[in-house]
């Protein structure tokens, strides 16, 4: 049950990361400054899309702990932290 909840959280977190990466990529694309780093963000977004699809499929076929789960959680935490600090520094720079 706990593992299932953890997996569900991982899928939801990966979905959020995918949405954020997509939003960053799309915004930069529209403003015309899609730099190398932002291409990385787009690639990362695609990886999270894979994690969402794979995780959803995996949830439907297995109830067991997968050894990749802690790494996915850690990556989501890192992305969340980066998002938080970026937003905080953007707020500081606003006049």
């Amino acid at each position, binding site marked *: 049950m706990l593992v299932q909840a953890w997996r569900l959280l991982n899928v939801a977190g990966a979905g959020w990361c995918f949405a954020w990466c997509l939003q960053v990529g799309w915004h930069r694309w529209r403003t015309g400054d899609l730099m190398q*780093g932002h291409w*990385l*963000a787009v*690639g*990362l977004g695609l*990886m*999270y899309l894979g*994690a969402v699809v794979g995780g959803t499929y995996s949830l439907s076929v297995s109830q067991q702990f*997968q*050894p*990749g*789960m802690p*790494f*996915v959680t*850690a*990556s989501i935490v*890192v*992305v969340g932290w*980066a998002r938080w600090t*970026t937003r905080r*520094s953007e707020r500081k720079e606003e006049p």
Partner: protein
Amino acid sequence: MPDRLRDPFPDWTDAQRQAVVELIATSASAMVKNELRLERRRFYMTSVLLVVTGLLALAAYTTTQSKIVDATRQQECVVQRLIIRVTPLQPRGVDKDGKPLHYTNAQAKQVRDFRDLMLGALPPGLHCPPDPGAA
């Protein structure tokens, strides 16, 4: 005096010159600060992206590796089941008088030795679920 050393603004006062120098210094400082800030942010974001990519790669690797181990164990269990099925310790069927078949001692030893030989080729410590078709 060469042209490049000649003062281009001979009618400027010292105060005007000082003001221009300060303006240039302030602008340059602001530009450098801004550039440094952008560079720091780029470095930070790239580091984050690299760390996250590494973590995702590790997740994919460990998950795939465990799937390979599971699949291999499953195959080994299939082989173990097959060996046990084709080397029955009691012969199946009946003789022409309708009595159950029996191995001679030599036959029983041969079958057991052959089973042990085949099972010995499988990795040690293999734990497989019971064979539903064994009965």
